[in-house]
């Protein structure tokens, strides 16, 4: 099976949120609260147990490439549909003590809801803050399934299917990465000087399966520039613990040995 991925292009996302709605419809995700945020048109605010696609609305005092906008100060409005990154080294999967979180044949990270016991270790282990517990329910953890059921029968994930402008593209990971690079080069040539591909590879997550074309700094999109899997600190943490224990033991022994 090929490893599949999303490429989400913020420069053609129109912020319609069809992806959010399609995701909820297909996956029967419940509502996530009727809270008006006051933050642009972003009332979803973040990914969570009941929001598996989230369109971020970014109002910035910067120009959108060559756009001519008759505003008193530079201004641009960028939309980005964010989703679980289905990391190659997934923090949630590694932290899960029950074996509920598994790797699928498409390279996605899947939470088996009938096995999850709601311990929440995965929540703190995700470097992107994606997975969360459904607190008002029985506390189990949920996130994007990568529409495993749809992929299984050869369909695209619901979000990519619903996207009217093909801002969300779905396909083989290597091909999408190349497409993303080409798109950034094209955008730069058209005057979008700060276009870039968000695809951190040189970190312990070992590559992600949901990459994005964005304008400007990833931090503005709540995307960590250098995401790290907490378990990557295991070796050094255990080594330090062992060394500390050894030193403590040595001190204790020394204390006995030096007894007059």
């Amino acid at each position, binding site marked *: 099976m090929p490893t599949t991925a999303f490429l989400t292009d913020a420069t*053609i996302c*129109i*912020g*319609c*949120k*069809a992806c*959010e*709605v399609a995701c*909820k*419809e297909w996956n029967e995700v*419940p*509502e*996530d*609260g*009727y*809270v*008006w*945020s*006051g*933050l*642009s*048109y972003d*009332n*979803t*605010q*973040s990914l*969570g147990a009941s929001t598996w696609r989230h369109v971020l609305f970014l*109002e910035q*005092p910067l120009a*959108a490439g*060559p*756009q*001519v*906008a*008759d*505003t*008193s*100060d530079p*201004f*641009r*409005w*960028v*939309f980005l549909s964010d989703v679980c990154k289905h990391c190659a080294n997934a923090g949630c999967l590694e932290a899960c003590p029950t074996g509920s979180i598994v790797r699928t044949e498409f390279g996605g990270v899947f939470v088996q809801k009938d096995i999850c016991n709601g311990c929440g270790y995965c929540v703190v282990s995700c470097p992107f803050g994606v997975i*969360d517990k459904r*607190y*008002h329910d029985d506390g189990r953890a949920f996130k994007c399934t990568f529409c495993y059921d749809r992929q299984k029968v050869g369909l695209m994930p619901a979000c990519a299917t619903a996207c*009217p*402008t*093909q801002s969300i593209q779905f396909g083989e990971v290597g091909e999408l990465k190349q497409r993303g690079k080409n798109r950034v080069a094209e955008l730069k040539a058209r005057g979008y000087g700060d276009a870039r591909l968000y695809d951190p590879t040189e970190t312990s997550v070992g590559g992600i399966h949901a990459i994005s074309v964005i304008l400007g700094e990833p931090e503005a999109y709540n995307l960590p520039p250098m995401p790290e899997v907490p378990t990557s600190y295991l070796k050094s943490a255990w080594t330090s613990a062992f060394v500390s224990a050894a030193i403590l033991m040595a001190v204790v022994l020394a204390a006995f040995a030096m007894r007059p």
Partner: protein
Amino acid sequence: MAENHPVAFQWVIEAREKHGAQVIHIDPRFSRTSAMANIWLPLRSGSDILLLGALIRYAIENEYFFREYLVHYTNAPVIISEKYRDTEDLKGLFSGWNPDEKKYDPASWLYEGAEPERWGTAASSHGGHGGEGHSPADLNHYEKDETLQHPRCVFQLLKRHFSRYTPEMVERYCGIDKEAFLRAAKTFCSASGPEKTGTICYAVGWTQHSTGVQIIRTAAILQLLLGNMGRPGGGVLALRGHASIQGSTDVPTLYDILPGYLSMPHFGEESLSLNTFTQKYGSKTGWWHNFDKYMVSLLKAYYGEAATQENEFGFHWLPRVTGDHSHQGYWLDMVDGKMDGLFVMGQNPAVAGPNSGMERRGLQKLKWLVVREMVETETASFWYESPEVKRGEVKTEEIGTEVFLLPAAGHAEKAGTFTNTQRLLQWREKAVEPPDDARSENWFMFHLGRLLKEKVKNDTSSKNAGLRALTWDYPTEGSEAEPIPEEILKEINGFKTDTKELVSGFTELKADGSTACGCWIYSGVFPKEGQNRANERESKDFYGHGWGWAWPSDRRVIYNRASAKPDGTPWSERKKLVWWDAEQKKWTGNDVPDFVATKPPDYKPPEGAVGDDALAGDKPFILHPDGLGWIWAPTGVVDGPLPAHYEPLESPVRNAMYPAVQNNPVSETKRRRGNDYADSPDAKYPYILTTYRLTEHHTAGGMSRTLSHLAELQPEMFAEISTQLAQELSIVPGEWITVTTARGAIEAHALVTPRMQTLMIDGKPMQQVGLPFHWGYSGLVKGDIGNDLVAISEEPNVRIMETKGILCGVRRGRAHGNGHTAAVPLESKGAN
């Protein structure tokens, strides 16, 4: 367009990304569409004609117009009556103004030599949707100057008329930076000539003005100048408000037109007989010469065998329009207690109507109200949930209206067609049975009609003669006796009355009663038994032939004769669409020709020819009596042959273009207690208010505020204001503010954003307040009603209200209750 038509906007994105199209967006606020545009211009709401007029002036001054197209295909070279006087001569009025009746006599707007109409002021108040082309005045004989130099030719009149619509005026009164305007003007006007086209897309942001029709006219004039009509990639595209709104004007739910844009008879001399009626609305030359065929075929569809030559095919059974029965007109009648009952289907006027508060008061005066809906809308629950009841202004027990809420089937629960923006009929299958007692519109109307007919079966009064004569025999299927929708579409398509054989198109329709047709423009959608063309689903080419069916006759680009030169060859290889095949002696190409297929380009009409035969082979606009694109409207528009900039009914400025005429003189304010207006300007209401929709909700919210997945995306009422206005009034982002107009006050959260810009109007900073109108008092998410602030007013041609460019005031605090200004907590949803 991205905001309200995201699915259609995919094509704009594709054009921008793959073909380098330049996207220009003009809107008072920076919307999701603006974010995707190459150029965004803000604009003072209500200054549209000023801006478009300046584009026309720019195209003329800089010779961007497409001369050969203009000279042959439009009335630019036609010479106008010497009795005509322009707004430049008459201080903002056109000739023919009657100040007592507040109406124009359009006789002086005719072509030189054309006879005035037989029925007096033809362009009377019933413009309706179908006005154009219906005129017995002989407009097919005219003098013209192909050099466009004659001082009274349309081109010169146009040039003079818009001579003061300068970039400086745009900067000063639209609030658009002059350089930005010039850049946009150059970009758009460059899309002209043989190799290029440009399109203009609009939605109700343009129509809901006291000058709405003339705004669209200005856009059409600009497109005709640039040669962008009837050509691929051109046009003025009306993006309709919801599914099948196009269908609801084609087979209309409007009071003043019949199916296929045939006029409804009015109470007057011209409606005394079918003959006088068809004489008035049929035209001697051009396609509307066939008016009688379409009218008689419609009457045959209505009345079947009861419609005979002797009884003028039942023409006298049709009701006569006796006054203003538009939404605004009849709602004011309701407020005045002149109406007993009302059916409301697929509409939520308690929230969606202008001056909704007054509309809800109107509902209280009814004896009965039937609401057919999928959910209990505010219109159905006004008697116990409305703000008037909650505030104690009226008690539920004092409201005598008997309300019937009947469950309606949703679009997936019934079969039928939708007609979209592109005039495309698309069939949809029933996916699931409707739940419980929910029924389709077809079911409801059919059985209601059946019961009413049953009731008057033995009644001999003339009042019910039409109802008794009505054919009402649709075959049904299933346990609920659902009318078979294909059978209705067949009746709309038309058939021969003797054999019941389906007609293949409207050219087969006759005026002698041998054919019946429910809507002539749809004729051909069901040309043979078993061939429902609306249900075709295999697109064969770039234009989508094979997917659905576009009226008329599956022509995807209307007036496409204009895509070829006068000699019949394409303007260019790149922009070819239909052309004359000299060998086969017929029009051919990539679309169905919107032209008589065998009429050669060099055809010259013989003396005395009538109908389409009276139009030469190089006259593409076949619905007009002269076959020309109307830069100048000699008839059919009641407020001027050319558009002129008038200020909205409420405006922060005086009309700088025509100081003596502040507003469209023919528009109506319907001023009365409860429907008051601010002064122009007005210190109490210093800001401009504009209402609009958001992607996340559907119109008045009946279909979106009741669904959790949509309701959570925009859960509360807010008003968008600029950072400068927030600073001026010390408004904290997110806190409650109260927005007031002369009609009422509502509260909303303050959404402070640079997407609302401070405009400099006549040297002074001007603020615009943006208000989505999706909320009401029922549903999963609730909020105050934006339309409570809007006045009931009427544009004179189609009687639409003005919801854009009205005046408002803003203050901190809530509208109701103790007026405290507690900021809403900007809480995170993470901790739910």
